[in-house]
């Protein structure tokens, strides 16, 4: 059973806003970016009017919410300290999908193991930041705002948009209607793609009328009104653009990572003018009964990435894609009494791409030299961001994340 934590839903919720306000983070207006919604038809139009040149690198960022237990993902199975810390929930050396003499992947990650063999997988180890925070909210904010020291009200990819000269509205695209903090800048935000197809509306004309702006609106009223405006757009799309390229049938709005990534693949193949896509998956907060739960989750991640690569196969843009998966923290080295693990610190980052330098990057932190029971980070997560900004998005990292941390050279 998953522990009751998946911060995706409340991300722009009232409770969430209350917390953020309390800690001085993120203005509500930024998160309530209702105008950023777009439909599949917007993507098809943009792809025909302003296609992304083949050969342009594309970032696909996968956020794993809840704090993935990286020690049971990229497993130091030959390290006795690992088994000592986790009686009953460790993986033996014969169970893992071997990567080298010491480490192997969780048995749920079969496709990732073959990507490792074919040199398409890079793994950064011991990624974190100084003075780790073990709150889901706060640590995810730190990763998403790229500001470990002080709360910021913009996300790192939002700031990338703020500083880029290309004004294409779909340059950054979040799959799903709710924008995570990382996609919100001071001046611009990612567009938010909803893929759901809708039938006839009982009050179609009324909703179109309710969707119009009104000078007496409060911010909250404007937000509600804009949701009706989007209904109108979607209906127009269905009627007007029946002949356009439609989304593949297997894509549903079930919110699964697989659906999100297949949507991304469809956008990329179509030539959407998008340099960066954000997708997410939740449920990684495994305080209890972790092994079964995490294996299911990792299998889902593994399958989604494999199907994404299959969907991209044969496209000239397949080798343009850099897919990166991270989580807000790893988990405690020592298991708890519920065959689960509590919130920890440093973790790994998975990079899947034809452009990655394959293999491990950085050192696995010691399992015995710990900081209050937790791993000591061996590299700063902003070194990854600096690399992605430079090598994938072609941007200067300095105005986005500062110059404190140098780029890690994980890409070719």
């Amino acid at each position, binding site marked *: 059973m*998953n*522990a*009751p*934590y*998946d*911060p995706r*839903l*409340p991300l*722009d*919720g*009232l*409770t*969430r*806003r*209350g917390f953020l*306000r*309390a800690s001085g983070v993120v203005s509500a207006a930024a*998160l*309530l970016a*209702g105008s950023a919604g777009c439909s599949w038809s917007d993507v098809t139009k943009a792809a025909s009017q302003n296609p992304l040149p083949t050969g342009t690198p594309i970032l696909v960022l996968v956020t794993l919410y809840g704090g993935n237990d990286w020690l049971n993902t990229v497993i130091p199975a030959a390290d006795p300290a690992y088994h000592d810390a986790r009686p009953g929930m460790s993986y033996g050396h014969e169970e893992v999908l071997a990567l080298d003499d010491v480490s192997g992947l969780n048995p749920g990650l079969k496709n990732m193991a073959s990507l490792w063999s074919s040199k398409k997988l890079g793994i950064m180890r011991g990624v974190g930041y100084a003075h780790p925070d*073990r*709150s889901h909210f*706060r640590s995810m904010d730190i990763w998403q705002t790229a500001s470990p020291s002080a709360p910021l009200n913009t996300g790192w990819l939002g700031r990338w948009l703020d500083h880029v000269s290309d004004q294409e509205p779909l340059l950054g695209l979040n799959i799903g*209607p*709710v924008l995570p903090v990382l996609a919100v800048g001071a001046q611009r935000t990612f567009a938010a793609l909803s893929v*759901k197809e*809708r039938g006839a509306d*009982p*009050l179609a004309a*009324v*909703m179109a*009328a*309710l969707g*119009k*702006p*009104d000078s*007496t*609106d*409060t*911010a*909250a*009223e404007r*937000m*509600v*009104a804009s*949701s*009706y405006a*989007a*209904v109108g757009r*979607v209906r127009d799309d269905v009627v007007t653009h029946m002949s356009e390229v439609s989304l593949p049938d297997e894509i549903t*709005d079930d919110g699964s990572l697989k659906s999100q990534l297949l949507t991304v693949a469809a956008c990329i193949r179509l030539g959407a003018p998008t340099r960066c896509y954000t997708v997410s998956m939740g449920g990684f907060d495994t*305080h*209890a009964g972790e092994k079964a739960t995490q294996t299911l989750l990792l299998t889902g991640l593994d399958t989604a990435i494999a199907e994404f690569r299959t969907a991209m196969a044969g496209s000239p843009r397949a080798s343009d894609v850099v897919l990166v998966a991270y989580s807000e923290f790893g988990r405690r080295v*020592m298991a*708890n*009494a*519920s065959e*689960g693990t*509590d919130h920890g610190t440093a973790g790994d980052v998975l990079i899947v791409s034809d452009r990655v330098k394959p293999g491990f990057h950085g050192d696995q932190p010691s399992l015995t030299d710990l900081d*209050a029971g937790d791993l000591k980070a061996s590299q700063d997560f902003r070194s990854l961001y600096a690399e992605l900004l430079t090598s994938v998005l072609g941007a200067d990292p300095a105005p986005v994340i500062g110059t404190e941390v140098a780029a890690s050279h994980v890409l070719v």
Partner: protein
Amino acid sequence: MRRAAFGVTGADVDRVGADVETWVAGALNPGADPGVDATPPPTFAAIPAVGANAGREERQARNKAVNDQGDQLSLWWLTRMVAAHRPVRERLTFAWHNHWATSLSKVRQASLMLKQNELLRSQGLGSFTTLAQQLVVDPALMIWLDAEKNTKAAPNENLARELMELFCLGVGGGYTEDDVKQSARALTGWRVAADGTVSHDAQRTDPGPETVLGVTDHFTPQTLVGAILAAPTHPRYLATRWWHQLASGDAPSDDVLSRLVAAYGPSRDSKALISAILLDPAFDAAAGTLVASPVEWLVGAMRTLALPATPANVQQGRAVLRMLGQVPFYPPNVSGWPSGASWSSTAAATTRAAAATKLATLADLSQISSATASSRIDAVAHLLALDHFSPRTLDALALAKGKPVQLVATALISPDYLVV
């Protein structure tokens, strides 16, 4: 009134008139409620555990029994919300449910969720200290946050962390990682039996002493709560969270906050806090910033339209809530339901429109249809306790002229009604 209660009508507002203080006092004080008397909670038979060797069918049968009880429980509460004559009590209990968000999806025992619900209802307007002390040993919350698995050999920090981060102090509320760890140790040894009985096992308890927020003690759950609630950040955090639940999506000003904290006082009086929010001079000015959650909207609409809480009506209502993503007893996670933008997605808009049409079809709209054509829109505004409609909504209502069902449905989904 629209923010504090589930569904008020213009007639309700007229009755209260200018004397809001009396209304708030009356709403928060105990009193007879025939609607509550008519909707007693269900009783749940114990569902025996299946053995380790149970077959697939046996397990499926048990799962079905567990889910059926959960269905019964959420239907009961929605029925109660619609039927209560004093809806503020249920509205506040629902807000506490959102604060101490616990889900049947993991607890899997409707009887324990009901027990927690009754605790939130009976203690929700008493001392927050007493409420928190009872909740840290509440079996549903304990199962939800793995507390029954927290032992000295391997502490599980889930309950201790959320107790500080979400329930009492908030992120940045002046506690450290070490306070979380020490609190987890202080909460070791508590167990929940299969029948929901909570007991303490000295063998599994950390001998202590622990130091939490500067206080060193051999803590019991009760003294631990006392130490946490003594933190200076607690009153401001709780007042802010409640302000967001009742008054506004915007943070309270320092002035407002100090008034609320003063009312809450050293006795941690929840009723005084809630009353202070509803009567604060800034409360009225803060209108127009909260989007009604699906439960508030649906229950409010059913009450306003005087739809009876029949099983058929409530079941249809729950189906709508499921589509809108808010079924009581099933919050998505321990921080409660989202709000604001999440309730105003395009998908929600179409679901709400269909539901509003259905509700208006079921309602007795003679009040509207008997009004003259020129006064119908005023009649709808009065029914829904709205002062007036915005020009945009008037345009939309004009499309529905002459059709009372469509007129009411349009008003129910208008930003004017959804934003409180």
